[in-house]
Protein backbone atom coordinates (compact mmCIF):
# COMPACT_ATOMS: atom_id res chain seq x y z
CA UNK A 1 0.00 0.00 0.00
CA UNK A 2 1.21 3.51 -0.72
CA UNK A 3 2.15 5.88 2.02
CA UNK A 4 0.08 8.96 2.59
CA UNK A 5 1.38 12.20 1.10
CA UNK A 6 1.69 13.70 4.53
CA UNK A 7 4.02 16.68 4.54
CA UNK A 8 5.92 15.34 7.55
CA UNK A 9 7.46 12.56 5.44
CA UNK A 10 9.09 15.10 3.15
CA UNK A 11 10.27 17.51 5.81
CA UNK A 12 13.90 16.53 6.16
CA UNK A 13 15.87 19.33 7.72
CA UNK A 14 13.97 22.18 6.08
CA UNK A 15 13.60 24.82 8.77
CA UNK A 16 10.58 26.42 7.10
CA UNK A 17 8.68 23.15 6.71
CA UNK A 18 9.35 22.24 10.34
CA UNK A 19 8.17 25.70 11.38
CA UNK A 20 4.99 25.16 9.36
CA UNK A 21 4.23 21.89 11.14
CA UNK A 22 4.95 23.48 14.50
CA UNK A 23 2.66 26.43 13.71
CA UNK A 24 -0.07 24.01 12.61
CA UNK A 25 0.25 22.24 15.95
CA UNK A 26 0.15 25.48 17.93
CA UNK A 27 -2.92 26.81 16.10
CA UNK A 28 -4.68 23.46 16.52
CA UNK A 29 -4.10 23.44 20.27
CA UNK A 30 -5.15 27.09 20.47
CA UNK A 31 -8.34 26.24 18.57
CA UNK A 32 -9.23 23.53 21.08
CA UNK A 33 -8.45 25.87 23.98
CA UNK A 34 -10.68 28.62 22.57
CA UNK A 35 -13.41 26.04 21.95
CA UNK A 36 -13.24 24.90 25.59
CA UNK A 37 -13.42 28.51 26.81
CA UNK A 38 -16.53 29.08 24.67
CA UNK A 39 -18.04 25.88 26.08
CA UNK A 40 -17.41 27.20 29.58
CA UNK A 41 -19.10 30.50 28.69
CA UNK A 42 -21.97 28.56 27.19
CA UNK A 43 -22.34 26.52 30.36
CA UNK A 44 -23.06 29.61 32.41
CA UNK A 45 -25.40 30.99 29.73
CA UNK A 46 -26.52 28.57 27.03
CA UNK A 47 -28.18 31.35 25.07
CA UNK A 48 -25.19 33.66 24.69
CA UNK A 49 -25.03 33.13 20.94
CA UNK A 50 -28.76 33.74 20.51
CA UNK A 51 -28.49 37.17 18.81
CA UNK A 52 -26.39 35.72 15.97
CA UNK A 53 -28.65 32.68 15.69
CA UNK A 54 -31.73 34.89 15.45
CA UNK A 55 -30.26 36.68 12.43
CA UNK A 56 -29.39 33.38 10.76
CA UNK A 57 -32.85 31.98 11.46
CA UNK A 58 -34.47 35.01 9.85
CA UNK A 59 -32.49 34.22 6.71
CA UNK A 60 -32.77 30.41 6.62
CA UNK A 61 -36.31 29.87 7.93
CA UNK A 62 -38.07 31.09 4.75
CA UNK A 63 -36.20 28.41 2.78
CA UNK A 64 -37.26 25.73 5.25
CA UNK A 65 -40.85 26.86 5.18
CA UNK A 66 -40.84 26.86 1.37
CA UNK A 67 -39.48 23.29 1.42
CA UNK A 68 -42.09 22.31 3.94
CA UNK A 69 -45.02 23.23 1.69
CA UNK A 70 -44.69 20.38 -0.88
CA UNK A 71 -43.91 17.87 1.89
CA UNK A 72 -47.11 18.78 3.70
CA UNK A 73 -49.14 18.53 0.47
CA UNK A 74 -47.73 15.03 -0.15
CA UNK A 75 -48.48 14.00 3.44
CA UNK A 76 -52.04 15.33 3.00
CA UNK A 77 -52.42 13.24 -0.18
CA UNK A 78 -51.17 10.10 1.55
CA UNK A 79 -53.52 10.54 4.48
CA UNK A 80 -56.41 11.25 2.07
CA UNK A 81 -55.82 7.88 0.43
CA UNK A 82 -55.19 5.95 3.65
CA UNK A 83 -58.41 7.37 5.16
CA UNK A 84 -60.43 5.10 2.86
CA UNK A 85 -58.95 1.87 4.22
CA UNK A 86 -60.97 0.46 7.12
CA UNK A 87 -63.13 3.57 7.16
CA UNK A 88 -66.32 1.81 8.30
CA UNK A 89 -64.70 0.09 11.28
CA UNK A 90 -63.01 3.31 12.28
CA UNK A 91 -66.23 5.27 11.99
CA UNK A 92 -68.06 2.79 14.26
CA UNK A 93 -65.37 2.87 16.96
CA UNK A 94 -65.23 6.67 16.72
CA UNK A 95 -69.00 6.88 17.17
CA UNK A 96 -68.68 4.84 20.36
CA UNK A 97 -65.89 7.14 21.58
CA UNK A 98 -67.95 10.22 20.68
CA UNK A 99 -70.97 8.93 22.62
CA UNK A 100 -68.77 8.37 25.68
CA UNK A 101 -67.25 11.81 25.13
CA UNK A 102 -70.68 13.46 25.13
CA UNK A 103 -71.55 11.83 28.45
CA UNK A 104 -68.17 12.86 29.89
CA UNK A 105 -68.47 16.43 28.68
CA UNK A 106 -71.81 16.89 30.47
CA UNK A 107 -70.36 15.80 33.80
CA UNK A 108 -67.26 17.86 33.05
CA UNK A 109 -69.35 20.98 32.51
CA UNK A 110 -71.19 20.38 35.77
CA UNK A 111 -67.86 20.02 37.57
CA UNK A 112 -66.61 23.21 35.94
CA UNK A 113 -69.65 25.15 37.15
CA UNK A 114 -69.20 23.73 40.63
CA UNK A 115 -65.51 24.56 40.55
CA UNK A 116 -66.19 28.15 39.50
CA UNK A 117 -68.74 28.53 42.31
CA UNK A 118 -66.28 27.11 44.87
CA UNK A 119 -63.50 29.39 43.64
CA UNK A 120 -65.82 32.37 43.89
CA UNK A 121 -66.73 31.30 47.44
CA UNK A 122 -63.06 31.12 48.40
CA UNK A 123 -62.29 34.36 46.55
CA UNK A 124 -59.57 32.67 44.44
CA UNK A 125 -58.42 34.59 41.40
CA UNK A 126 -56.55 33.01 38.50
CA UNK A 127 -54.33 35.25 36.41
CA UNK A 128 -55.73 35.86 32.95
CA UNK A 129 -53.72 34.29 30.16
CA UNK A 130 -53.92 35.64 26.64
CA UNK A 131 -53.22 34.01 23.33
CA UNK A 132 -50.38 35.87 21.64
CA UNK A 133 -50.26 34.07 18.32
CA UNK A 134 -51.17 30.91 16.52
CA UNK A 135 -48.05 30.12 14.56
CA UNK A 136 -47.03 27.55 11.97
CA UNK A 137 -43.96 25.44 12.60
CA UNK A 138 -41.54 26.05 9.74
CA UNK A 139 -38.38 24.29 10.82
CA UNK A 140 -36.52 22.34 13.44
CA UNK A 141 -33.05 21.76 14.76
CA UNK A 142 -31.39 18.79 13.07
CA UNK A 143 -28.75 18.63 15.81
CA UNK A 144 -27.99 15.56 17.90
CA UNK A 145 -28.75 16.73 21.40
CA UNK A 146 -31.11 19.65 21.00
CA UNK A 147 -34.79 19.64 20.14
CA UNK A 148 -36.15 22.99 19.01
CA UNK A 149 -38.70 24.16 16.49
CA UNK A 150 -38.81 27.39 14.50
CA UNK A 151 -42.20 29.06 14.29
CA UNK A 152 -43.37 31.66 11.79
CA UNK A 153 -44.11 34.41 14.28
CA UNK A 154 -41.80 36.88 15.99
CA UNK A 155 -41.66 40.21 17.77
CA UNK A 156 -43.89 41.63 15.00
CA UNK A 157 -46.64 39.34 16.28
CA UNK A 158 -45.95 40.09 19.94
CA UNK A 159 -43.87 37.00 20.70
CA UNK A 160 -41.44 37.38 23.57
CA UNK A 161 -38.84 35.15 25.15
CA UNK A 162 -40.26 32.90 27.85
CA UNK A 163 -43.79 32.60 26.51
CA UNK A 164 -45.20 29.06 26.71
CA UNK A 165 -46.12 27.17 23.56
CA UNK A 166 -48.89 24.58 23.50
CA UNK A 167 -51.36 22.97 21.18
CA UNK A 168 -54.79 21.48 21.78
CA UNK A 169 -53.27 18.24 23.15
CA UNK A 170 -50.84 19.66 25.63
CA UNK A 171 -47.66 21.54 26.34
CA UNK A 172 -45.09 21.88 23.54
CA UNK A 173 -42.35 24.03 25.05
CA UNK A 174 -41.35 27.63 25.47
CA UNK A 175 -39.94 30.43 23.35
CA UNK A 176 -36.18 30.87 23.76
CA UNK A 177 -35.25 33.15 20.86
CA UNK A 178 -37.21 35.79 18.98
CA UNK A 179 -36.48 37.62 15.77
CA UNK A 180 -38.78 40.00 13.92
CA UNK A 181 -40.56 37.30 11.91
CA UNK A 182 -39.44 33.97 13.40
CA UNK A 183 -39.01 32.57 16.87
CA UNK A 184 -37.47 29.39 18.26
CA UNK A 185 -39.31 27.13 20.68
CA UNK A 186 -37.40 24.84 23.05
CA UNK A 187 -39.34 21.57 22.92
CA UNK A 188 -40.07 19.60 26.09
CA UNK A 189 -37.78 16.79 24.95
CA UNK A 190 -34.70 19.03 24.65
CA UNK A 191 -31.96 18.21 27.11
CA UNK A 192 -32.11 21.78 28.45
CA UNK A 193 -35.85 21.76 29.08
CA UNK A 194 -37.15 21.56 32.67
CA UNK A 195 -40.85 21.76 33.38
CA UNK A 196 -42.36 21.63 36.88
CA UNK A 197 -45.16 19.06 36.78
CA UNK A 198 -47.49 17.28 39.15
CA UNK A 199 -48.94 13.83 39.03
CA UNK A 200 -52.58 14.35 38.06
CA UNK A 201 -53.67 11.41 40.22
CA UNK A 202 -52.44 12.68 43.59
CA UNK A 203 -50.69 16.00 43.01
CA UNK A 204 -47.17 14.74 43.77
CA UNK A 205 -44.68 17.35 42.50
CA UNK A 206 -41.93 16.42 40.05
CA UNK A 207 -39.63 17.87 37.40
CA UNK A 208 -39.91 16.78 33.76
CA UNK A 209 -36.53 17.00 32.02
CA UNK A 210 -35.94 16.29 28.34
CA UNK A 211 -33.56 13.50 27.38
CA UNK A 212 -33.23 14.59 23.72
CA UNK A 213 -34.48 11.24 22.43
CA UNK A 214 -38.20 11.87 22.43
CA UNK A 215 -38.90 11.08 26.07
CA UNK A 216 -39.03 12.94 29.34
CA UNK A 217 -37.19 11.97 32.49
CA UNK A 218 -39.45 12.53 35.48
CA UNK A 219 -37.63 13.20 38.73
CA UNK A 220 -39.67 13.20 41.87
CA UNK A 221 -39.08 15.85 44.48
CA UNK A 222 -40.14 13.59 47.33
CA UNK A 223 -37.02 11.65 48.18
CA UNK A 224 -38.45 8.75 50.16
CA UNK A 225 -40.81 7.14 47.68
CA UNK A 226 -41.53 6.78 43.98
CA UNK A 227 -45.15 7.78 43.36
CA UNK A 228 -45.27 6.91 39.64
CA UNK A 229 -47.14 4.10 37.91
CA UNK A 230 -47.16 3.37 34.19
CA UNK A 231 -50.04 5.25 32.54
CA UNK A 232 -50.04 8.14 35.00
CA UNK A 233 -50.87 11.56 33.54
CA UNK A 234 -48.51 14.43 34.33
CA UNK A 235 -49.76 18.01 34.11
CA UNK A 236 -48.00 21.33 34.61
CA UNK A 237 -47.98 22.48 38.22
CA UNK A 238 -47.84 26.22 37.56
CA UNK A 239 -44.76 26.54 39.78
CA UNK A 240 -42.31 29.08 38.38
CA UNK A 241 -44.99 31.12 36.70
CA UNK A 242 -44.24 30.39 33.05
CA UNK A 243 -46.72 27.59 32.45
CA UNK A 244 -50.31 27.71 33.60
CA UNK A 245 -51.30 24.81 35.88
CA UNK A 246 -53.05 21.70 34.57
CA UNK A 247 -51.81 21.67 30.99
CA UNK A 248 -51.28 18.00 30.03
CA UNK A 249 -47.55 17.29 29.62
CA UNK A 250 -46.80 13.57 29.44
CA UNK A 251 -47.87 10.03 30.23
CA UNK A 252 -45.59 7.79 32.31
CA UNK A 253 -44.37 4.82 30.28
CA UNK A 254 -41.83 3.21 32.60
CA UNK A 255 -40.90 3.51 36.23
CA UNK A 256 -37.25 3.47 37.28
CA UNK A 257 -35.48 3.52 40.61
CA UNK A 258 -35.08 7.31 40.84
CA UNK A 259 -38.13 8.42 38.90
CA UNK A 260 -39.90 7.57 35.69
CA UNK A 261 -39.79 7.91 31.94
CA UNK A 262 -42.70 9.59 30.19
CA UNK A 263 -43.89 10.22 26.65
CA UNK A 264 -44.96 13.77 25.79
CA UNK A 265 -48.63 14.14 24.89
CA UNK A 266 -48.14 16.78 22.20
CA UNK A 267 -46.03 14.95 19.62
CA UNK A 268 -43.74 17.52 18.00
CA UNK A 269 -43.32 15.52 14.78
CA UNK A 270 -47.06 15.68 14.13
CA UNK A 271 -47.36 19.37 14.93
CA UNK A 272 -48.00 21.91 12.22
CA UNK A 273 -48.75 24.85 14.43
CA UNK A 274 -48.58 25.91 18.04
CA UNK A 275 -50.42 28.35 20.25
CA UNK A 276 -48.21 30.91 21.97
CA UNK A 277 -49.62 32.31 25.19
CA UNK A 278 -48.54 34.99 27.61
CA UNK A 279 -46.70 33.61 30.64
CA UNK A 280 -49.02 32.53 33.43
CA UNK A 281 -47.66 35.03 35.91
CA UNK A 282 -45.59 37.57 33.96
CA UNK A 283 -43.88 39.03 37.03
CA UNK A 284 -42.45 35.68 38.00
CA UNK A 285 -41.32 35.04 34.44
CA UNK A 286 -37.66 34.22 34.02
CA UNK A 287 -36.62 34.92 30.43
CA UNK A 288 -34.03 32.14 30.06
CA UNK A 289 -34.31 28.39 30.33
CA UNK A 290 -32.84 27.28 33.66
CA UNK A 291 -29.08 27.17 33.16
CA UNK A 292 -28.45 23.44 33.11
CA UNK A 293 -29.02 20.87 35.67
CA UNK A 294 -30.10 20.04 39.14
CA UNK A 295 -27.33 17.49 39.68
CA UNK A 296 -24.66 20.10 39.44
CA UNK A 297 -25.53 21.57 42.76
Amino acid sequence: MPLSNRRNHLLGHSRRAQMGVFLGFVTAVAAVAIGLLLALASRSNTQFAAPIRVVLTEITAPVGSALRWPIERVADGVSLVSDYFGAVDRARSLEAVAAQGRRDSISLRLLEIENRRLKALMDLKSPAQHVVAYAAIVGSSPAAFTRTAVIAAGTNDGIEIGQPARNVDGLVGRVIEVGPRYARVLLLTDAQSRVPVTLARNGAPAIAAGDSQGHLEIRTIEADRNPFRPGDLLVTSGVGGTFAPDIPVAVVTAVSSEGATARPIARPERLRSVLIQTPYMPLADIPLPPPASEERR
Partner: protein
Amino acid sequence: MNIPWRQMEPREQVRFVVIGGWRASIPPLTVALAVLLQSFFPLVTTLPLLPELGLPLLVAWRVYQPSLLPVWVALPLGIFADIVLAQPIGIATVSWPLVLIAVDLARQRLPWVSVAGDWGLSALGILLAMLIDWRMTLFITGNGSLVAVLPRTALEILCVPLAARVAAAVEWRLFLIR
Protein backbone atom coordinates in the same frame (compact mmCIF):
# COMPACT_ATOMS: atom_id res chain seq x y z
CA MET B 1 2.76 30.58 -8.01
CA ASN B 2 5.55 29.52 -5.68
CA ILE B 3 7.52 32.76 -5.59
CA PRO B 4 8.38 33.68 -1.98
CA TRP B 5 6.32 36.55 -0.62
CA ARG B 6 9.24 39.00 -0.27
CA GLN B 7 10.26 38.59 -3.90
CA MET B 8 6.79 39.34 -5.28
CA GLU B 9 5.80 42.57 -6.97
CA PRO B 10 3.12 44.44 -4.98
CA ARG B 11 0.67 43.63 -7.77
CA GLU B 12 1.55 39.93 -7.44
CA GLN B 13 1.15 40.11 -3.69
CA VAL B 14 -2.38 41.50 -4.06
CA ARG B 15 -3.17 38.83 -6.63
CA PHE B 16 -1.75 36.12 -4.36
CA VAL B 17 -3.84 37.24 -1.40
CA VAL B 18 -7.06 37.79 -3.34
CA ILE B 19 -7.01 34.78 -5.63
CA GLY B 20 -5.00 32.47 -3.37
CA GLY B 21 -7.18 33.45 -0.42
CA TRP B 22 -10.29 32.84 -2.43
CA ARG B 23 -9.12 29.36 -3.39
CA ALA B 24 -8.08 28.46 0.14
CA SER B 25 -11.44 29.52 1.54
CA ILE B 26 -13.44 27.17 -0.70
CA PRO B 27 -12.86 23.85 1.18
CA PRO B 28 -14.03 25.29 4.54
CA LEU B 29 -16.92 26.99 2.74
CA THR B 30 -18.12 23.63 1.38
CA VAL B 31 -18.32 22.37 4.96
CA ALA B 32 -20.23 25.49 6.05
CA LEU B 33 -22.58 25.03 3.10
CA ALA B 34 -23.22 21.41 4.10
CA VAL B 35 -24.11 22.56 7.62
CA LEU B 36 -26.43 25.23 6.24
CA LEU B 37 -28.05 22.72 3.85
CA GLN B 38 -28.89 20.53 6.81
CA SER B 39 -30.59 23.37 8.65
CA PHE B 40 -33.12 23.69 5.82
CA PHE B 41 -34.64 20.30 6.71
CA PRO B 42 -38.21 21.35 7.37
CA LEU B 43 -39.69 18.60 9.56
CA VAL B 44 -39.57 18.29 13.32
CA THR B 45 -38.31 14.85 14.33
CA THR B 46 -38.50 13.25 17.74
CA LEU B 47 -35.30 11.30 17.37
CA PRO B 48 -32.12 12.78 15.90
CA LEU B 49 -32.09 10.46 12.89
CA LEU B 50 -30.88 12.87 10.25
CA PRO B 51 -27.10 12.59 9.78
CA GLU B 52 -24.99 15.65 10.25
CA LEU B 53 -23.71 16.60 6.79
CA GLY B 54 -20.91 18.94 7.80
CA LEU B 55 -18.94 16.52 9.98
CA PRO B 56 -18.39 13.77 7.35
CA LEU B 57 -17.30 16.41 4.84
CA LEU B 58 -14.92 18.00 7.35
CA VAL B 59 -13.35 14.66 8.24
CA ALA B 60 -13.19 13.64 4.58
CA TRP B 61 -11.31 16.83 3.68
CA ARG B 62 -8.80 16.26 6.47
CA VAL B 63 -8.32 12.56 5.71
CA TYR B 64 -8.05 12.80 1.95
CA GLN B 65 -6.48 16.23 1.44
CA PRO B 66 -5.06 17.51 4.75
CA SER B 67 -3.19 20.44 3.21
CA LEU B 68 -6.42 22.13 2.07
CA LEU B 69 -8.06 22.28 5.50
CA PRO B 70 -5.91 23.40 8.44
CA VAL B 71 -7.04 22.14 11.84
CA TRP B 72 -7.79 25.59 13.28
CA VAL B 73 -10.44 26.15 10.58
CA ALA B 74 -12.52 23.52 12.40
CA LEU B 75 -13.01 26.03 15.24
CA PRO B 76 -14.91 28.71 13.28
CA LEU B 77 -16.71 25.96 11.38
CA GLY B 78 -17.70 24.30 14.66
CA ILE B 79 -18.97 27.60 16.05
CA PHE B 80 -20.96 28.11 12.85
CA ALA B 81 -22.40 24.58 13.10
CA ASP B 82 -23.38 25.10 16.74
CA ILE B 83 -25.15 28.34 15.85
CA VAL B 84 -26.91 27.03 12.77
CA LEU B 85 -27.95 23.71 14.33
CA ALA B 86 -29.25 25.54 17.43
CA GLN B 87 -26.94 23.75 19.85
CA PRO B 88 -25.30 25.49 22.79
CA ILE B 89 -21.92 26.84 21.65
CA GLY B 90 -19.19 24.43 22.71
CA ILE B 91 -20.36 21.13 21.24
CA ALA B 92 -19.13 21.09 17.63
CA THR B 93 -16.90 24.00 18.64
CA VAL B 94 -14.86 21.63 20.78
CA SER B 95 -15.37 18.31 19.00
CA TRP B 96 -14.48 19.36 15.45
CA PRO B 97 -10.91 20.61 16.12
CA LEU B 98 -10.27 17.68 18.49
CA VAL B 99 -11.44 15.19 15.87
CA LEU B 100 -9.14 16.66 13.24
CA ILE B 101 -6.21 16.47 15.68
CA ALA B 102 -7.08 12.85 16.42
CA VAL B 103 -7.31 12.03 12.72
CA ASP B 104 -3.88 13.59 12.18
CA LEU B 105 -2.35 11.62 15.06
CA ALA B 106 -3.87 8.37 13.80
CA ARG B 107 -2.54 9.13 10.33
CA GLN B 108 0.97 9.57 11.76
CA ARG B 109 0.79 6.13 13.39
CA LEU B 110 -0.79 4.46 10.33
CA PRO B 111 0.45 6.33 7.28
CA TRP B 112 -0.75 3.81 4.69
CA VAL B 113 -3.37 4.91 2.24
CA SER B 114 -6.23 2.66 1.16
CA VAL B 115 -9.90 3.29 0.51
CA ALA B 116 -11.12 1.06 3.34
CA GLY B 117 -8.41 2.32 5.68
CA ASP B 118 -9.29 5.95 5.05
CA TRP B 119 -12.96 5.20 5.52
CA GLY B 120 -12.12 3.46 8.80
CA LEU B 121 -10.05 6.45 9.88
CA SER B 122 -12.96 8.79 9.08
CA ALA B 123 -15.34 6.47 10.93
CA LEU B 124 -13.11 6.62 14.00
CA GLY B 125 -13.13 10.40 13.77
CA ILE B 126 -16.92 10.52 13.55
CA LEU B 127 -17.32 8.11 16.48
CA LEU B 128 -14.96 10.27 18.50
CA ALA B 129 -16.99 13.34 17.57
CA MET B 130 -20.13 11.60 18.80
CA LEU B 131 -18.50 10.84 22.16
CA ILE B 132 -17.11 14.36 22.57
CA ASP B 133 -20.47 15.90 21.55
CA TRP B 134 -22.14 13.77 24.18
CA ARG B 135 -19.66 14.68 26.90
CA MET B 136 -19.87 18.37 26.04
CA THR B 137 -23.67 18.24 26.07
CA LEU B 138 -23.52 16.66 29.51
CA PHE B 139 -21.06 19.35 30.59
CA ILE B 140 -23.13 22.25 29.25
CA THR B 141 -26.74 21.18 29.79
CA GLY B 142 -26.40 18.39 32.37
CA ASN B 143 -28.45 15.99 30.29
CA GLY B 144 -28.16 13.97 27.09
CA SER B 145 -28.46 10.42 25.88
CA LEU B 146 -25.90 8.58 23.80
CA VAL B 147 -28.22 5.80 22.61
CA ALA B 148 -30.38 8.18 20.60
CA VAL B 149 -27.53 9.33 18.38
CA LEU B 150 -26.12 5.89 17.45
CA PRO B 151 -28.26 5.44 14.28
CA ARG B 152 -27.42 8.95 13.19
CA THR B 153 -23.72 8.32 13.70
CA ALA B 154 -23.95 5.15 11.61
CA LEU B 155 -25.56 7.19 8.82
CA GLU B 156 -22.79 9.77 9.09
CA ILE B 157 -20.18 7.04 8.68
CA LEU B 158 -22.03 5.80 5.60
CA CYS B 159 -21.95 9.37 4.27
CA VAL B 160 -18.14 9.50 4.27
CA PRO B 161 -17.53 8.09 0.74
CA LEU B 162 -20.06 10.55 -0.66
CA ALA B 163 -18.41 13.38 1.27
CA ALA B 164 -15.01 12.30 -0.06
CA ARG B 165 -16.43 12.40 -3.60
CA VAL B 166 -17.71 15.91 -3.02
CA ALA B 167 -14.35 16.99 -1.59
CA ALA B 168 -12.50 15.41 -4.53
CA ALA B 169 -14.80 17.09 -7.07
CA VAL B 170 -14.35 20.48 -5.44
CA GLU B 171 -10.58 20.04 -5.27
CA TRP B 172 -10.45 18.99 -8.92
CA ARG B 173 -12.37 22.05 -10.07
CA LEU B 174 -10.41 24.40 -7.82
CA PHE B 175 -6.87 23.36 -8.41
CA LEU B 176 -6.58 21.29 -11.55
CA ILE B 177 -8.83 22.97 -14.09
CA ARG B 178 -8.26 26.57 -14.94
